[in-house]
């Protein structure tokens, strides 16, 4: 038997090229756009209904409205009670997720293809004809209020909440989708009814079907299920706080905010600032920058905080590219005793990549290859393809967006990475949020030169 050469690593040949499957885009007479992708490889159908309204559309005094409305959609519709809807979905083996993000509400359904038509009828009932009954509303709002109570002891949730609130303040991105206790208590059923009527409508929504069916069968099934959805928006007030997402970003928060958790064994950290939007022309350079900095296991920040210093189980950075400028965030949970050390090291890495220690050719090659060589794995299942198409719909990206990702990343140069780091990472504009035991980190923090810590409440 021959044996492999252990003197050097095998060098992979050229990576396979990737092509996103064709998306056929059509429209029903009621204005609903229907996109279909044929994916005949397993007997599964994934459907996503994307509505371009999320938590950013919440009224300033009622944060949590979009998410509460999303939660109410599957609480009974047409002739079905709340439990009947869940029972009917379960009998089809269907998984339904309602995801309310800052920019969108997405209803995501995956089912066995042979149940596709029946599952789409239920999805249509949920989106178009939710019952929105008072008794269900009170129960669902109570459950969300109780979830907020629970979050008072979840360090990662406290950190995310404090970070968004301090960074964005009154901007539409300045709250978690679940909202606040005062916000939820201020929401009444008519708010939900109005939000649904004005924002969940056939025009503007996109239904994406991916799976074991032809384009024409997909369109037919969509028309049968969603064709009778009529647009009832005339009388509803418009929730349009998300209409101008560029407003109000000048006063973004900075400095250090602490949520005190006496005797907590770990400190939960968020460090960041307002980042960029999804249509930023520098998008690919920012993606490469993030991969080098903190977007993968072998990034600078994870290697420093975890692999070199052993201060954490993991540390990551991410740009959330949204319709407006989403946050850039470094997130980690560190040993309480090492809080100050971890903040110092993280800040140093965020600063150094702007010039003191710019990205090197080797780092660039690694980041680009890791983003591109295995790109096909992101598009293996019907659900992955449906989610990807939903990104195209939500951010008005061109049809060839995924086909062009690899060549555009490969084109990024070292000096571009340094330039976008200088443009988008401002060491003087960073906000640091720490959820942890203030008593054991207090004095050292002041010496970091990032300002006096402000103690903020952990109430929800």
């Amino acid at each position, binding site marked *: 038997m021959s044996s492999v050469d252990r003197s050097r690593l095998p060098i992979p040949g050229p990576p396979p090229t990737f092509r996103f499957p064709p998306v056929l885009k059509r429209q029903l007479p009621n204005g609903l756009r229907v996109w279909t992708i044929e994916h005949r490889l397993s007997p599964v159908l994934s459907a996503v209904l994307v509505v371009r309204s999320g938590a950013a559309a919440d009224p300033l005094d009622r944060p949590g409205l979009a998410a509460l409305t999303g939660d109410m959609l599957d609480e009974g519709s047409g002739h079905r009670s709340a439990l009947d809807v869940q029972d009917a979905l*379960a009998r089809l083996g269907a998984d339904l997720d309602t995801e309310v993000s800052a920019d969108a509400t997405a209803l995501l359904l995956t089912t066995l293809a042979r149940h596709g038509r029946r599952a789409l009828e239920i999805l249509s009932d949920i989106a178009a004809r939710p019952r929105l009954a008072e008794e269900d509303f009170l129960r669902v709002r109570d459950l969300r209020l109780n979830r907020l109570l629970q979050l008072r002891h979840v360090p990662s949730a406290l950190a995310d909440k404090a970070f968004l609130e301090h960074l964005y303040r009154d901007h539409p991105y300045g709250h978690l989708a679940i909202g606040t206790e005062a916000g939820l208590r201020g929401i009444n059923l008519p708010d939900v009814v109005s939000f649904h009527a004005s924002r969940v409508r056939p025009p503007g929504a996109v239904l994406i079907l991916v799976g074991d069916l032809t384009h024409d069968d997909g369109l037919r099934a969509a028309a049968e299920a969603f064709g009778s959805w009529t647009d009832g928006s005339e009388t509803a007030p418009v929730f349009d706080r998300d209409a101008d997402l560029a407003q109000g970003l000048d006063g973004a928060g900075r400095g250090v905010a602490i949520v005190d958790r006496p005797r907590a064994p770990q400190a939960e950290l968020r460090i960041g600032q307002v980042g960029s939007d999804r249509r930023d022309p520098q998008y690919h350079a920012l993606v490469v920058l993030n991969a080098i900095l903190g977007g993968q296991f072998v990034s600078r920040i994870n290697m420093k905080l975890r692999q070199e210093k052993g201060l954490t189980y993991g540390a990551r950075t991410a740009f959330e590219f949204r319709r407006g400028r989403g946050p850039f965030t470094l997130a980690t949970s560190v040993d309480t005793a090492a809080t100050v050390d971890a903040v110092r090291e993280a800040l140093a890495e965020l600063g150094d990549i702007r010039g003191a220690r710019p990205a090197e050719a080797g780092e660039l090659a690694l980041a680009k290859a890791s983003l*591109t060589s295995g790109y096909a794995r992101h598009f293996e299942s019907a659900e992955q393809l449906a989610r990807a198409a939903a990104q195209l719909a939500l951010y008005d990206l061109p049809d060839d967006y995924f086909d062009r990702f690899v060549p555009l990343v490969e084109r990024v140069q070292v000096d571009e990475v340094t330039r976008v780091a200088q443009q988008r990472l401002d060491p003087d504009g960073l906000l640091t949020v720490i959820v942890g035991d203030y008593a054991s980190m207090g004095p050292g923090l002041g010496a970091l030169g990032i300002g006096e810590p402000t103690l903020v409440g952990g109430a929800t």
Partner: protein
Amino acid sequence: MQVDFTKRVLPNGLPVIVHEDHHCPIVGVSVWYHVGSQDERPGRTGFAHLFEHLMFEGSEHQDGSYFQPLQQAGASLNGSTSTDRTNYWEVVPTNALELALWMESDRMGCLLPALTQRKFENQREVVLNERRQNYENRPYGLAPVAMSAALFPPDHPYHWLTIGWPEDLRAATLDEVHAFFATYYHPGNASLALAGDVDPDRAFALVEDCFGAIPAAARPPRTLRRASLPAERRLVLEDRVELPRLYMAWHTPGLFQDGDADLDLAGDILGSGKPSRLYRTLVFDRRVAIDAAAGQNSRELSSLFQVTATAAPDHSLAELEQLVTAEIDRVAAHGPTESELERGLARAEAAFVFRLQHVGGFGGRSDQLNAYNIYLGDPGFFARDWERYTHVTPASIRDIVQRDLRPDARVVLSVVPRGRLDLAVSGSEPIHVS
């Protein structure tokens, strides 16, 4: 319910399973070792998982990061440790299959020469951080620690969780890492599965080149140890939480044993999602709880059936206990309806199909082929696995619930806010876990 494959065993004892599917230009590479926290001993808990971390720290001929060359090739990769097994996987673009096999074989054959005291101590700190982050600093995070300790006697290997006790992690030594590697990390105690865009002939040839020279070793013995509870145990744990939560658990038949599938479906009917009996009664109708769940946690030596429910404000765990017990008693007396069983089967079938959509990663086809091979010696167990479910009847669920989910053979744990021991169900003994 079928995944086609070819299986061969190398002369050194390594089973190799190849499944061909060319629709996406990627390959799922999966390596399982039949070792988990059940192979640890008291005083050295958490060791199998700590060892898993060390497998990513380089090996003799690639003495650096395990991640770096694979990420450079566009791979995603991870590993995990349970009570029963440790698994590692890469999902690579087709062109990087040889690299992944080279890397996996180098750490299977030649891990120790690259392992230093410094790496060992670094990863111990990382694991202690993991424990603090995911257990100590998380609400209800120590409840599973308390439940395992109460259900199993101190010398049973399910007495502790896979993450282990901090003092045991601190006591572990590099010498023990060497001994652990020699006993458990070799071709005779492993299984390799490749799924996706591979040509089987080329795949077997590459595997032989990479793994063929690794010396054979004897499969370590395993003893099936059952556990039972002589009486009900009632405990209370204080935690940094807002709302009290009730945990209830019973010993049930192990993975793939008679009754395992019946209890899996019983879990669906009782407490999986909104149409389930516990959710309907506790959360929807009576509104005494904000969540309610039940399920069979299938494991090799002995499984657990567990119910959890969190009290709504102004409601007591005593109310929850009474309602949960009544729902279980109802199933024990009458079984589920035919209609409930049909719904449970529909969900089970879909879950089977959904998880096989991916060739790699946790739960994908390569992972499942290895699971069947490690536990049953038959990678093609898919259809028979599903048959276990189609043979379940309302009467078989009734009988096993009656036999196993008895009030006099369970652990009942109340997790309450600090300083509020009075919120526990009656007769609970306070315990401390850290």
